[in-house]
């Protein structure tokens, strides 16, 4: 079993998806139990994997190698490194919480859980696979079920069609209901097309007939090729990470997605994009990354600020969280663009921290919406008196979002801004810090308007707090948020080793130093 732990982690949700499809229609409990058990297997597996990771040795561990298409040089190679461990854990936690958060779903639950599990199998695969082509394959498996997850179970008519897509809609009479789903899918697939072109170029130019990430990273590609390919990888994966101006699918997608889908989507899916930019773009194309660095960093800074300002002007609760995700993913990209150990550790830590935080947000938003049947903030107010538990956890997530010391958000933002300061572009820290400030404004304003202000109005007197299983998601995620804030070492240690190894190649001159001390 130990030799196949990573396969087990990836396969458990996929097998769960198949089992769910095979269950008879209407076996509500059976479907949920299968989903829960397979998510627990993945979660337990990732805990075992991260606990067993030898931080002193670093590098790739638990390598599993299967010949998949040897005649094309495609090998299914799983391995754990310092980055993938925490991200696996994050995915496991979010899936587990997500399954519980949609426990009450009534419409076509069988297909819903099957798709959700399939999506997560793709996510987990991306984090551990060491073959570029299969990286892309798992990436697609993670992205595509979103179309159905949003299209079928999404909130209808929540998102009015706008912009060029609107014309396409009228022309082909698709109707506005699936607008968000199709916008998301098409935008992400255009990104995928760019990635695929880059993969072809990397494979052909390496001349070694392999897609192995490690070997490709050892290849010295000509500078011109690197400079040409980097933007393809950056924007291709970056679309999923919400890189400005290709983030527009994300708020619409989040706003119309059902609770667990939003959790997975913002919590882990967007991380795949940033992970891809770092793991494929920067590590394999170091010279390209250096050449484009000013642009990547500037766009990330825009992301942070622009996302925060957009969030501030929203009245729909889900849109606030969605735009805050765009802003926070900007922090990840900013950290990546610094090419410093602090920045990279901060970026990966922010992936985990933001994943947990945003998962918590969407779980709570789902709870509020299920009771109040509205996400329109001006109608709300004073909900803390009727749902104190939800209010408390929501406030906790807000505090992490604005980077309060003692929460996970603080650690990552601190590291990223430190990295920005130490990098060649100290100016990036300024919009970053400003963004954090604006974040404080809108989250506090939002929380006050929903939970702490006067009210609740007459129609909301009957609202209740979370019940039974509904508690699991907020509690688990809330605890993670505080633990990560107080004791960042549990994941930062392993992240650090891998960041250092990658940076060694990327920035050979720079002395890679420990940054954990600074975080504490």
């Amino acid at each position, binding site marked *: 079993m130990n030799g196949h732990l990573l396969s087990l982690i990836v396969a458990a949700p996929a097998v769960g998806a198949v089992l769910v499809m095979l269950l008879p229609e209407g076996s509500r409990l059976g479907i949920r139990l299968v989903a829960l058990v397979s998510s627990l297997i993945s979660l337990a597996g990732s805990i075992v994997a991260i606990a067993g990771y030898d931080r002193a040795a670093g590098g790739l561990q638990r390598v599993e190698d299967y*010949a*998949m*298409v*040897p*005649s*094309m040089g495609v090998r299914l190679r799983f391995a754990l490194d310092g980055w993938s461990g925490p991200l696996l854990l994050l995915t496991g936690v979010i899936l587990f919480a997500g399954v519980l958060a949609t426990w009450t779903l009534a419409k076509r639950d069988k*297909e819903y859980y099957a798709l959700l599990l399939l999506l997560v199998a793709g996510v987990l695969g991306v984090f551990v696979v060491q073959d570029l*082509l299969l990286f*892309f*394959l*798992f990436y*697609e*498996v993670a992205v*595509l079920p979103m*179309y*159905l997850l949003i*299209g*079928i179970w999404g909130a209808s008519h929540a998102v009015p069609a706008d912009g060029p897509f609107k014309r396409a809609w009228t*022309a*082909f009479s*698709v109707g506005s*209901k*699936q607008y968000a789903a*199709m916008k998301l*899918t*098409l935008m992400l*697939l*255009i990104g*995928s*097309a760019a990635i*695929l*072109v880059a993969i*072809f*170029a990397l*494979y*052909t130019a390496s001349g070694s007939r392999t897609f192995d990430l490690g070997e490709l990273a050892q290849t010295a590609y000509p500078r011109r090729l690197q400079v040409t390919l980097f933007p393809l990888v950056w924007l291709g994966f970056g679309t999923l990470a919400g890189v400005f101006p290709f983030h527009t699918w994300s708020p619409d997608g989040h706003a119309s997605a059902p609770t667990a889908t939003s959790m997975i989507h913002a919590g882990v899916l967007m991380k795949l994009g940033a992970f891809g930019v770092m793991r494929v773009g920067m590590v394999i194309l170091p010279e390209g990354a250096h050449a484009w660095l000013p642009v990547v960093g500037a766009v990330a800074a825009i992301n942070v600020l622009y996302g925060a300002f957009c969030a501030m002007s929203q009245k729909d609760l889900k849109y606030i969280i969605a735009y805050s995700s765009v802003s926070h993913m900007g922090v990840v990209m900013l950290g990546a663009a610094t090419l410093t150990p602090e920045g990279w550790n901060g970026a990966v830590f922010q992936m985990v921290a933001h994943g947990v935080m945003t998962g918590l947000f969407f779980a709570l938003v789902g709870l509020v919406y299920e009771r109040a049947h509205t996400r329109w903030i001006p109608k709300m107010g004073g909900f803390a008196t009727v749902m104190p538990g939800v209010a408390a956890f929501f406030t906790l997530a807000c505090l992490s979002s604005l980077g309060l010391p003692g929460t996970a958000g603080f650690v990552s933002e601190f590291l990223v801004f430190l990295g920005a300061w130490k990098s060649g572009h100290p100016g990036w820290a300024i919009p970053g810090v400003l963004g954090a400030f604006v974040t404080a404004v809108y989250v506090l304003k939002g929380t006050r308007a929903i939970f702490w202000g006067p009210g609740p109005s007459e129609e909301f007197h009957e609202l209740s707090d979370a019940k039974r299983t509904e508690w699991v998601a907020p509690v688990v995620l809330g605890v993670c948020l505080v633990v990560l804030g107080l004791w960042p070492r549990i994941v930062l240690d392993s992240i650090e080793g891998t960041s250092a190894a990658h940076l060694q190649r990327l920035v050979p001159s720079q002395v890679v130093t420990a940054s954990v001390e600074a975080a504490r």
Partner: protein
Amino acid sequence: MSDLGVLVYPLCTAALAVVVLLLDVLRAPSAAGSATHGRRLGWFVAAALAGLFAATFFYAPSGVAAHGVYEAGAWSLALQRLFFAAGALGALGALDDVADRTPHRAGEYWMLFVSSLTGMVLLPGARDLVLLVVAFELMGVPLYVMAAFAKTDAAAGEPRGQASEAGLKFYLVGATSTAITLFGLALLTGMAGTTRLDALAAAPMTPLSAAGMLMVLGGMGYKLGVAPFHMWVPDTYQGAATPFVAFLSVAPKAAGVAALTQLFLFGLGPARAQWSGPLAMLALLSMVVGNVLALPQTDLRRLLGYSGIAQMGYLLVGLGTGEAFGAGTVLFFLTAYVFTNLGAFLVLHVAAKAGGGHGFDALAGLSKRSPALAGALLAFLLSLAGIPFAVGFWAKLYVFLAAWRAGNVALVAAGITVAVLGLFYYLRMLHAAYMVDGDLPRPKPGLAAGLAIAVCVVAVLGLGIWPEPLTASALRAAGSLLAQR
């Protein structure tokens, strides 16, 4: 190895055609015109072809026959295997429809079906222009008849003239393209002084033979239905019986691509500089025209017709590399395409039979009415769109990779871009099946068509998860054809 041993698969198929004819002639008088008789014949044909398919895994003929006119090897075997599979699945898919619609003429249908298949099975071994043309026409002529087969037996609610129109259009275009092809071949042969493909490669290129080559390319383009020679495709697909279209849209295309490969990569390989440009143009036009014109279609048969044109475009991208690796990827693509498109048309047929015509309405609420059928459609459409873990992903990936390696960077970039566009109309079909409510009755595929669809699903997903066996055998087959050059 004796000639008989080398020619065993074409001979067996030809014998099967005769046996089918005899079975029909010698039937009990009481069985005349009964649907049961037609159904039995269909099952017999499907079982025999499945048997031949299985036999290809145990007996691999190799060597030349008829003084080098025919050659059996890994290339011909791989394609023959594909034709047997397509034939068996096509027979399974059509047998209920044929037996119910045309009970009096079911025997003729199956005889024509197997005759056409004989031409296909003969084709990949042809190393001589004369045999190539004969095999191609043996395949093509029965198809004209079959396209118009349902002309007097239109099902209730269908305009009666459609099948005749489909057949006539198909015939006129086919005959014209044959004439053009033959004229081109005459020029080529006249200049080279030989009809042998390997000798053709050695002959010097003259302007006249280059003109002949282009005419052949155009003529073959008509048969394959690539843009700008594609006009007959949507009309024929719409007019002919859908289960027949399922077969028509895959097997003859595979045969056409086999002929192109033998003629251009094997025979005219040294003249690649002259034909690669026009071929790339055809590929680009097909990808763009197919994907763009599929967008506004409301009849799903026409939509799949245009999608097929686009798929042929991707295929030509791989063929344009002119090398064994590219030909191998093309063979992989063809195999993927056969299972995917055949399955998609069969699902469409079954769904349309439940009422609702052939528009998007026919799919409305399919996921509730028949989850299995909707799931099958999902697999096929994802494969056509080139989504991972369906075989179509690998197919598209391989041909683009081959073209990229051969240096056709711009063509690949264009292809990937329009492929994303193509996703839109596949998603529209899925949208109808999964997100629109419909209250049509539950579609019933019947045993035969259900079996065919199931086999296609297994192939599409199985080869999508583990593409290695097919990849290796396709590359080996293409290598064996082009290594001798």
